[in-house]
């Protein structure tokens, strides 16, 4: 048996692959240095006892994290927050986009209005919110006019609602723009055909439009989900290291573990969080794939 010489087709393909590798390499190197390598390091840290001993302990760190009450609190808070904030951000943005589809005077001003929070730096956003919601802030001042006792917005159970609203305020505009683009892409004749066929505006939405929106819904959901895990930034700036307990997010936990040099627990927690996010996103992709597959041209 002689070894087969590679045919011209194979040679060409090999060359193509080499070429694409060369073109990809700059960003590939970037991803490796700033993403893959740190991720490997995190995995490494999560399975050793400490950076000095470097003894291999397998899942001890993970068990420790899961049993940690601060972690449990943080995970529960984050889950609760995401569960409310993310679907809300998606649905509200879609509703707003559909509203702005109609002929409304001053439509473009509305758009700018909803987009502006995106352009404001977080620090100044937080400043405004502090001015409004501080115990001696504007809102309490206003309420006192009506004889309502002052509420410490950020140190009661109201605080979670505050954060959800802050999150929406920050994210709705961008989501809405994405939905507006998607709505504009729905084939017009299909909607017309449905209306001739006797579909009400709800049926038109439910049977036709939502199919064409599903990739965007998926994208906006993932985006909002990731942003919801990042709400820590706003919370941290508003309330510092140890906020009111319902505001204690996963990243507070990690941040605090970082300051106390407990890299093992930090890494284990990060991996658990990553696994959960990946699982959720995977499930979303699977659902979208099944739901929207026929409408993609």
């Amino acid at each position: 048996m002689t070894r087969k010489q590679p045919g011209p087709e194979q040679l060409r393909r090999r060359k193509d692959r080499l070429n694409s590798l060369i073109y990809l390499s700059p960003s590939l190197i970037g991803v490796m240095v700033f993403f893959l390598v740190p991720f490997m390091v995190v995995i490494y840290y999560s399975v050793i006892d400490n950076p000095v001993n470097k003894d291999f302990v397998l899942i001890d760190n993970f068990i420790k994290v899961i049993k940690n009450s601060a972690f449990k609190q943080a995970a529960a808070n984050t889950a609760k927050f995401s569960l409310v904030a993310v679907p809300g951000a998606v649905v509200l943005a879609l509703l707003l986009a559909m509203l702005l589809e109609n002929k409304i005077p001053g439509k473009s001003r509305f758009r700018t209005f909803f987009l502006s929070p995106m352009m404001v730096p977080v620090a100044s956003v937080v400043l405004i919110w502090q001015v409004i919601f501080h115990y001696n802030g504007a809102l309490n001042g206003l309420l006192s006019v009506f004889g309502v006792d002052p509420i410490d917005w950020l140190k009661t159970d109201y605080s979670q609602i505050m954060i959800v609203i802050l999150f929406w305020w920050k994210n709705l505009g961008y989501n809405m723009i994405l939905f507006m683009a998607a709505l504009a892409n729905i084939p017009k004749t299909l909607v017309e055909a449905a209306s001739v066929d006797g579909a009400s505006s709800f049926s038109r939405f439910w049977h036709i439009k939502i199919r064409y929106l599903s990739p965007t819904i998926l994208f906006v959901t993932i985006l909002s989900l990731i942003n919801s895990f990042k709400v820590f930034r706003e919370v941290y700036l508003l309330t510092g290291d140890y906020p009111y307990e319902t505001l204690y997010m996963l990243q507070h936990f990690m941040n605090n573990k970082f300051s106390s040099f407990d890299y093992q627990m930090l890494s284990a927690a990060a991996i658990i969080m990553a696994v959960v996010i990946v699982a959720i996103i995977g499930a979303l992709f699977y659902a979208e794939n099944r739901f929207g597959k026929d409408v993609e041209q």
Partner: protein
Amino acid sequence: MASITLKNVDKTYDGDVKAVSGFDLEIKDKEFVIFVGPSGCGKSTTLRMIAGLEEISSGEIYIGDRLVNYVEPRDRDIAMVFQSYALYRHMTVYKNMAFSLKMHKVPKEEIDRRVRETAEMLGLTHLLDRKPGALSGGECQRVALGRALVRSPSVFLLDEPLSNLDAKLRSDMRAEIIKLHKKLQTTFVYVTHDQTEAMTMGDRIVIMKKGLIQQVDSPKDIYDHPKNKFVAGFIGTPQMNFFDGEIKTEGGRCFAEACGSRFAIDGRYAAFSGRKVCVGVRPEHMELCAGAAPENVISGGRIELVELLGSDINVHASLGDIRFVVRSQWQSGLEMGSAVNVRVDTSRIHIFDAETEENLAMTETEAEA
């Protein structure tokens, strides 16, 4: 089952595109009306206004006795076949066809019966479980047709429903739609730019040009008595021949002078004596003849091209820079470049005013009436 009345309907799109102007038409109950005209003349726009998909800029539209200017499409009791199919891509053929019935809350068994019946009629039964993505253009078009036909609305609106079918399927479907119209006893409004469809299917044809109605008549009347030069040229293949000329009276007889010859025409044209006109003769109303003659014969033409169409031929000829076509039986000895004489059937001549392009015969009768 309903009549449709359009009263002075105008449509101006944003940006001052005048798509339809002063559209006046009464479509009787159970009538089959065809809209024809060149691309962009406003056929689809008019149909879409009847459907309620396009706001009308001014005027009134009635379906039956009801003013529908502000009625939603879904409340107009119409079914429509779209020029671009507009099939729901995520639904199977069955669901596509069942959709409107479902929206109208028809019971499940009834939906099933009607969908299967319609699918049978359109030869779609084996495709019911497929999705539009897996169908050919012609199959999609039949599904689009089926989706409209499963219902029994009071008006059917069809926008070029056969444009993507092959010749055989098209003529089959044409016959099928005519039968359907007979069976359903419903008002049909049908848009096409195909002459055969226009001539064979409709009770009446509406010919449009640049948003204006040119003529509304039965196919035969449109063929025999075109109101103006545009209509005359638009209906009939090959196109009607036009010759510039003038009307003369001589010794009590009336002639149209053109092509270096003169054609005896009816005495009633005497009123237009001296008028510059355009003489129209259909290719099928001319014949090749042997000898020259002082009257009713165009002599000295040169054959430029002979088109063979089975038993018939189209002879394209020229006389100076005038070009014309003669429909004839096949005969030998017709060579390119050889000379021909053509006899014109003067009883079928149409005379149009050179400026207004109106048919003089009809302006006259209108003047009398």
